[in-house]
């Protein structure tokens, strides 16, 4: 088996002197749609941000394409993996196309700021996320679902083979959640490697083909949803007694809580 493009080897991560994870080792299978799941504050986002090089581990190494990620030039990493953070800040008064065009930053230089390929990448990203008709609008006047599609368009315009997304469906209503997940699936179908922190186990099982399950900063298990997502696991990780049975539409595992009375 060949080495995956993105992996963490024995990483210890923390902020403000507080350690969140110790000695984590995890691989992101190439071309997978990987979902990181686990209870609140279990270190999902921390792991994702470490994989994106936003956080530096105090021990261990994140390896990208066979080399420690900290040895790369910043722009080189930015051409290989992109991140959509949990909350993003749009500059005051920015319009959709301008924001999507910011995703081209890693491909631009002081003298090459807007090549034909920059323009086509932005146009393609807006078309794929169906925000082309919004392109001249102000970002702050869009609905939550539209705005999230614009942020994903910016990530897409970066044209990285690996895309990391931190809770991309949070704050959206159920229809828009599925719209975003369908969009991620279509990107996955185009050979992108997707890593997303997701809260909804049902959605994670339905869309992801690889799960990373975390609890208290540690990785409990990894694998395909059908193999991993069992009633025992949900009870162990979330302390939620439940029945797991196949989703009537897709046949993927679905969690039905069994509440004691």
């Amino acid at each position: 088996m060949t080495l995956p493009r993105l992996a963490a080897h024995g990483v210890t991560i923390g902020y403000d002197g507080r350690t969140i994870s110790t000695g984590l080792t995890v691989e992101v299978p190439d071309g997978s749609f990987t979902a990181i799941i686990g209870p609140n504050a279990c270190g999902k986002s921390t792991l994702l941000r470490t994989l994106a090089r936003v956080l530096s581990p105090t021990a261990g190494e994140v390896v990208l394409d066979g080399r420690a990620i900290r040895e790369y030039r910043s722009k080189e990493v930015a051409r290989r993996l992109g991140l959509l953070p949990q909350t993003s800040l749009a500059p005051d008064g920015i319009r959709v196309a301008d924001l999507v065009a910011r995703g081209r930053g890693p491909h631009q230089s002081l003298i090459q700021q807007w090549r034909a390929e920059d323009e086509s990448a932005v146009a393609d990203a807006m078309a794929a996320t169906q925000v082309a008709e919004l392109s001249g609008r102000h970002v702050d006047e869009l609905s939550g679902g539209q705005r999230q599609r614009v942020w994903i368009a910016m990530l897409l315009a970066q044209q990285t083979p690996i895309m990391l997304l931190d809770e991309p469906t949070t704050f959206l209503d159920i229809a828009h959640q599925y719209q975003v997940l369908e969009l991620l699936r279509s990107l996955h179908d185009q050979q992108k490697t997707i890593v997303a922190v997701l809260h909804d186990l049902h959605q994670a099982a339905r869309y992801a083909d690889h799960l990373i399950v975390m609890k208290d900063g540690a990785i409990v298990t990894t694998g395909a949803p059908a193999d991993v997502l069992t009633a025992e696991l949900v009870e162990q990780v979330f302390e939620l007694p439940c029945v797991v049975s196949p989703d009537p539409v897709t046949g993927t595992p679905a969690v039905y809580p069994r509440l004691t009375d």
Partner: protein
Amino acid sequence: MSEGAAGGAIDFGRTTRTVRSRRFSARVPVRIVAVSGGLVALAVVLGVVALGVGEYPVSPTEVVRAVTGGGEAFVRTVVLEWRLPIVLAAIVLGAALGIGGAIFQSLTRNPLGSPDVIGFDAGSYTAVVVAILALGARDYWTLAGAAALGGIATAVVVYLLSFRDGVQGFRLIIVGIGVSAMLGSVNSYLVTRADVGDAMAVGFWGAGSLSRVTWESMLPALAAFAGICVVSALLAPSLQRLELGDDLAVTHGTRVGAARLALIVVGVAATALVTAAAGPLGFVALVAPQLARRLTHSPGVSLLSAAAMGAALLMSAQLLTLVVAELYRTIPVGLITVCLGGTYLIWLLVRESRRHERTS
């Protein structure tokens, strides 16, 4: 070089021109460039008018003749030797204040985050007071050096005090306001200990005036300004990426810590340059980027239009002081910038607090 249609096939919601050749490509925001050009033109026109105003009035045609190398010898001395450095100072120092303000407002994501609010002017003031009282210094260069040192030292202290796993904008502003208040009380105390002559020297410097500027003092300032322009142009893409938050700045290829430190250094240098050359000129750095943004509708802060607006503002204020001097008596330009800027600050605070009431 080919010139594409307005923005190509993409609707940017504002007019942009695409410029491309084999080695160079850019998307030019038409409105930002046009507004900035207009502001610079306004500053130059006001500058030509200002070259004619004073105890020895010179008509605009004579001014133009003198600047282009003709006219009477005495008129040329008045216009080129005495007045031109002051007019140049108004334009260049105004632009420097605009750049410094734009950098700090963008880094702190706050329209209040300008160098004079964060306490650099207070630090310069303290150093100048100490230089005058303790060293008995009065000459331009010692005071300029003290002002620059004091401002930079305060910037370092504010930066270190607000550093905790990196520097956050809001903490920088709060720490800056606190340090500024402490320095203010030190300044007041020192002045009460001074004799009348020294206190007047301090007061004269602290009012902020361009009338002390000569060619000799302006040339190094021009060189420093050119350096600041080049470095800030190089750092502008990083500044733009930092606007999206640290996580995206990193994943868009910015070395966040280094970029932010470099931007702070440039912003402080721009401000220190002005304080050294002319004393504190309050509020231009605060006002210029915001007014420029409202005129250009630029997303975030634009360094170019902030610099152009700063130049136009300080040139207008300087012309106003010349007119007031004609009609009434001599006043320092710092008085005008503080009066106009203070009015703007009150309006901004009232508007911000109303907005908070509405949203909460």
